[in-house]
């Protein structure tokens, strides 16, 4: 299936053993799509992640979880029961061949199986163990359980998201898991760099709470300087005013009148007879504030956002009226017309997309962002999200679809580790694999 040469893969010389659940599975996907040989170790019967939906045509089946498909591209799968002594003997053989192990068990669990970092180091002195947990390997909360929602909650993000009249509201698509997984991949690659220099492996403790604090955009800092906790306020924290507006076929995101580019937008509105009374003198000071306070506006370099925000609050009626006229203009155009029309006038308006409009986006299509992944068992090809980065010498690539349960048992156990067919049958009979 894999036609390109190994030499153009950044991590082709690296083997990773993947013992992750949802909080770490993106880490090993990142490594696999960069060319590492990632072997997913599944309990006999399959990884519990295979039960997470959505499913292909909503058919609940362990080989049809889109969740499993998405996060396990380019990986291999072997089945192995690490809770059995025989399974751990096999695991130790695999560990000898590996560079990195990524795991998401509760702190102490691997130790209870005799698989602590100290023991792994005896088996393979250069091994890099990456341990992803909710709260870290030490400290008073180390045994606490976590989840994506709890990662967001305990790092200060969740409280600031949503509207004041609603409860704090989660982000979609498990952002806390992505954040801790991406940080874990950074840790793994840093350790790899250090190993190349020093010959030494190491253990990296990667807490979801700690790594996610970055995503809160300095919530603790705000408290430290002001003694106040940042509050959820829709979009107010960012712009002082809302910046999501309706248009003809959906919504767009942009400061009222395009912020710094308001003059260009007013000209555009004028040319279509949609400027209403905004050229009246009384709007001049308000438009001046709008032009100075938008992100990226020239004014931001001289003015402080919060001052500008205060400025708009001095003109509540005028600002509301400007929003109305602006939205009335937007409603005469589609997202695409507004996106192109504003951007070519130097205004950073962007569309509010959903999955359909993302997949249909002409910009992404022109750059061949989406990639075709073949699923031979279904005799079908599906479009997957493509490269998060484009490396000129070692392109990111999905080398093959997510593995079937134990798809690589023969390749790994017989061809590579040299067990016989009979031994393999014995492992199966004993429920070791």
């Amino acid at each position, binding site marked *: 299936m894999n036609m390109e040469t190994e030499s153009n893969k950044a991590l082709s010389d690296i083997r990773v053993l993947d013992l992750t659940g949802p909080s770490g599975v993106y880490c090993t996907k990142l490594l696999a799509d960069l060319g590492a040989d990632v072997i997913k170790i599944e309990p006999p019967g399959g990884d519990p992640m295979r039960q997470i939906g959505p499913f292909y045509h909503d058919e609940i089946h362990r080989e049809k979880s889109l969740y499993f498909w*998405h996060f396990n591209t380019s990986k291999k799968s072997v089945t192995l029961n690490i809770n059995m002594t025989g399974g751990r003997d096999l695991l130790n053989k695999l560990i000898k061949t590996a560079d990195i192990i990524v795991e998401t068990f509760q702190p102490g669990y691997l130790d209870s199986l005799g698989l602590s970092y100290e023991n792994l180091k005896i088996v393979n002195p250069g091994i890099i163990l990456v341990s992803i947990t909710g709260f*870290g390997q030490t400290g008073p909360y180390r*045994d606490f*359980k976590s989840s994506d929602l709890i990662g967001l909650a305990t790092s200060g993000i969740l409280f600031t998201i949503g509207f004041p009249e609603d409860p704090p509201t989660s982000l979609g*698509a498990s952002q806390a898991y992505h954040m801790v997984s991406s940080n874990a991949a950074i840790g793994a*690659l840093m350790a790899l760099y250090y190993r190349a220099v020093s010959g030494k492996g190491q253990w990296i403790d990667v807490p979801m709470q700690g790594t996610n604090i970055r995503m809160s955009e300095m919530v603790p800092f705000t408290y430290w300087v002001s003694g106040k906790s940042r509050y959820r306020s829709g979009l107010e924290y960012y712009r002082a005013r809302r910046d999501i507006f309706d248009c003809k076929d959906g919504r767009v995101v942009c400061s009222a009148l395009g912020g710094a580019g308001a003059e260009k937008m007013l000209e555009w509105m004028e040319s279509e007879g949609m400027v209403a009374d905004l050229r009246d003198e009384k709007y001049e000071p308000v438009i001046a504030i709008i032009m100075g306070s938008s992100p990226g506006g020239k004014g931001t370099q001289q003015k402080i956002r*919060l001052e500008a925000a205060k400025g708009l609050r001095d003109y509540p009626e005028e600002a509301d009226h400007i929003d109305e006229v602006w939205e009335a203009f937007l409603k005469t155009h589609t997202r695409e017309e507004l996106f192109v029309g504003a951007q070519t006038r130097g205004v950073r308006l962007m569309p509010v997309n959903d999955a359909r409009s*993302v997949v249909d986006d002409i910009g992404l299509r022109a750059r061949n962002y989406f990639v075709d992944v073949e699923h031979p068992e279904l005799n079908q090809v599906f479009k997957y999200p493509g490269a998060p980065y484009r490396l*000129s010498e070692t392109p990111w690539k999905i080398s093959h679809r997510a593995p079937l349960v134990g798809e690589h048992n023969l390749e790994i156990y017989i061809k590579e580790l040299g067990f016989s067919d009979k031994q393999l049958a014995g492992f199966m009979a004993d429920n070791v694999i």
Partner: protein
Amino acid sequence: MTYKMPLSGIRVADFAWVQAGPWIGRFFANYGAQVIRIESAKRLDWSRNVPGGPEVVDGKIQKGAYFVNFNCDKLGITLNLSNPQGVDIAKKLIAISDVVTNNFSAGYMDRIGLGYKDLVKVKPDIIMLEMPVFGNSGPRRTFAGYGTGIQSAIGLNSISGMPDRRPGLNIALPDMGPNPTHATIAVLAALHYRNKTGKGQYIELAQLESSLGWMETTILDYTVNGRVRKPQGNRLPYAAPHGVYRCAGKDGWCAICVFTDTEWKVFCHVIGDPALIANERFATLRKRKEYEDELDELVTGWTRGRSAWEVMVLLQYAGIAAGVVETGEDLVLKDEQYKTHQYYVELPYGGGKAYCENTMLRFSETPCKVRNAAPEMGQHNDYVYRELLGMSEEEIVQCYVDEVFA
């Protein structure tokens, strides 16, 4: 170097500014690389002036709080890239660097003579990272964007929040999550490849595409099933109860996640209602999903009279995932883990103090902590221009006179 760090020996020429870009250099600096941040008063970094919080006097930072946090452990020099001589000096620095990062708009570095093709002439194995929002090619290549726009354009805003509400994500998640982390991963992978083969390379990270990598199954659900996902609030298809529950006190909330039927039984015991286990309406996950509104009310009935901290501790000690929806005050004053791990550190800056995010990755062999707050403008001009680049006193004075170091 007083102790070993994982990236000791790497030098990064960091031209990035604002938020998503500088954080990449920060990863490198915090974990041991020498990162030289190039700035110019002629094109002042937004984050130097925007506090992101009220101004503070009496010994603490007054402005530039974002900058101070984004550029910890870096060296700082001033260099005016709109001056041709500034570009020549930049090349000298690049010639002794391993990595060059920037997040200027597409084509900017090429226009000033610092494109990848120019850099390989002075450093053949250089690794160069650029982060044009829509990429270097395609019909959108000249367009610009920012974090809140990107999270809308990738569809995150359309699947976040409460059902039937307007989208309202008031953070710039792409700038803090996917883009700096992906970029760091790409550069580290390129360094690994360079160590093996001696080859550098060019990395293009289109911020829109990078951010799309964090959209989980929203894309596949559409391309495979034709389903356009909507916001689910705090619920999850494979857990119940799963949500944020009202607790005692002003705006007190606790997140609770019960995934399995076994956990549900434990939960019933913790809330002092073991009889609930026998209630068939809640006995299985499918049933709990079916009667989820009723279930959530029942949970709230128990949480409402307790503090969020009490709820978290009672549930966690029984093995149920729960977490206080922490405010800034909770994190700084009440969270024991935050304190133990020093998730933020106070560092000296500008005659006062700065409060900076600490390192979050704990390496057993090469432990790293944030050591220094960000440099002041041009703080390391002397070291870089005199010692690293070997410029003479006369050359350096002339560069100040000619505004090359402005």
